[in-house]
């Protein structure tokens, strides 16, 4: 059966991937870590941009909120960083509710600029040491490494398994989420809002929900980032970060989970491969971005139609009741 085949292929791929740290040097492992974090971010943004069709170019704000929540609570109150994972998601989610609620009715590009604006406001607030807890431009340092049952995640190799386990869980959960009532509802409002509302879908609710779920995951990614770097500063949460995440979603193929992973490999990995070009590496990267978009206009791995296994007796006509 094809289904079994895919399962076998996927498991094999996972085993190969999991053994990578034994073959790669630390640098490449760390590149993979970076890719992992961006995969998580892209998966979360994919819900908002890819599925709900909401044009969000300020995702770094949620990422930042998560990272700063982790940093502040960890350095200030000594709460273990791993225990803060849900808290980071929670604060980012709450922030998303507060922000998204009034702006959710904006359409397309108006929403886009507002999200950019929110991203910038957050960054400026961090720089200006809002509430006196963000450390201003210096950021916050001395963030603890995660530790589980006395085992401390320290080296890039450790982080590889930590990050990619989280990414794997995210993939599984989001796969389920996509193939459910919730995922479909997001698609409806992406396709035609009036028709969605006219079919009984509470569009405002789902837009907000997309933002919240996306923000929660970005917040948790922020926690992971903070614990990996042990120092965070506003420089890590600029508009450029949002742009990168956005580019991953579109380039990978919006709405497609494998697309997000591949997109993260390309957007984060290519600049590393292009290190050979020294000063011209970003130039080459820019050109590559255009080229990839042109060759795969729908994204590299565009989303596939959902397939449903249909009930047997769908042939004969029956009632509506």
């Amino acid at each position, binding site marked *: 059966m094809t289904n079994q085949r895919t399962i076998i292929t996927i498991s094999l791929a996972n085993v190969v991937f999991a053994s990578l740290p034994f073959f790669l040097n630390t640098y490449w492992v760390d590149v993979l870590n970076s890719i992992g974090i961006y995969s998580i971010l892209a998966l979360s943004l994919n819900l908002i941009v890819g599925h709900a069709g909401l044009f969000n170019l300020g995702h770094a704000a949620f990422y930042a909120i998560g990272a700063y929540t982790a940093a502040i609570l960890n350095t200030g109150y000594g709460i273990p960083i791993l225990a803060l994972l849900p808290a980071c998601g929670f604060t980012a989610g709450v922030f998303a509710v507060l922000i998204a609620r009034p702006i959710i009715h904006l359409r397309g590009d108006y929403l886009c600029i507002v999200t950019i604006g929110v991203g910038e406001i957050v960054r400026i607030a961090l720089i200006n040491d809002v509430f006196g807890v963000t450390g201003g431009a210096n950021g916050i340092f001395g963030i603890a490494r995660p530790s589980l049952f006395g085992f401390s995640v320290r080296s890039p190799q450790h982080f590889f398994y930590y990050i990619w386990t989280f990414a794997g869980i995210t993939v599984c*959960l989001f796969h*389920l*989420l996509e193939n*459910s*009532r*919730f*995922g*479909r*509802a997001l*698609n*409806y409002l992406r*396709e*035609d809002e*009036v*028709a*969605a*509302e*006219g*079919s*009984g*879908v*509470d*569009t*405002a609710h789902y837009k907000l*929900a997309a933002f919240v*779920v996306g923000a929660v995951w970005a917040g948790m990614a922020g926690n992971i980032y903070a614990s990996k770097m042990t120092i965070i500063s506003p420089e890590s949460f600029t508009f450029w970060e949002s742009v990168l995440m956005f580019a991953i979603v579109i380039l990978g193929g919006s709405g497609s989970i494998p697309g997000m992973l591949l997109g993260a490999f390309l957007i984060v990995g290519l600049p590393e491969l292009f290190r050979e070009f020294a000063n011209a590496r970003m130039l080459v990267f820019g050109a590559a971005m255009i080229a990839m978009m042109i060759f795969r206009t729908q994204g590299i791995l565009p989303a596939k*139609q*959902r*397939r*449903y296994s*249909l*009930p047997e007796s*769908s*042939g*004969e*006509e*029956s*009632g*509506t*009741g």
Partner: protein
Amino acid sequence: MSLLSLKRLTKNFGGLTAVNNVSFDVEPGAIVGLIGPNGAGKTTVFNLITGIYAPDQGEILFAGKSLVRLRTHRIIAMGIARTFQTIRLFQNLTVLENVLAGCHCQMKGGVVASLLHTPLQRREERKAIVGAMSILSFVGLHREAQQVAKNLSYGNQRLLEIARALATRPKLLILDEPAGGMNEQETGRLVTLIRKMRDQGITILLIEHDMSLVMKVCEQIVVLEYGSKIAEGPPEAIKQDPRVIEAYLGTDSDW
């Protein structure tokens, strides 16, 4: 009690009164036609009923409850479904998914249930798909279930809109020019379908310019002109009504 009743409904757009003091009732189980010249305000009436516009004045009661200022999806959940004058499908989704949109308000699974695919959620999902497929067979689109909606022909797209509306389990179905762009044969099939839906207990309110269809299926007809109701009655009476003939039907008695 009437299923739907409009009371002195008025809607202005800038200086234009698109709907002017219109009242009429729809009885349960009836097939009611809403006709009138172009720009008479028929679609606007539908948009008022489904909450896309809010009326400037007047009251809309559905099964005794007021619909005024409710959000559209709430109104749908109360048991009113509609189709659109210009087709509004989810073009890039499959036919089945389009119908599942209609099932949406029958289902409960939220974010967490969706994330975890709880057994409850799975059962619900299963049920929705079965339901959606039976509705598709009902309108005759079950073979296209896994096709992308935009690949359907125009007539089938219209049917799909109806299927999506049916999936919300409406008590009242309102159709805005369902036969637009259909030929005689297809229109004939639509007539059968409309009757079949009524036999399932669904009340129907429709706008149509195809008089052969209207006169064939409607039991009651409301005529609008310049936003105001100018006549109401059974087809025979409407056909004879001089005002309607002058404003809308024309003298030629082809139908």
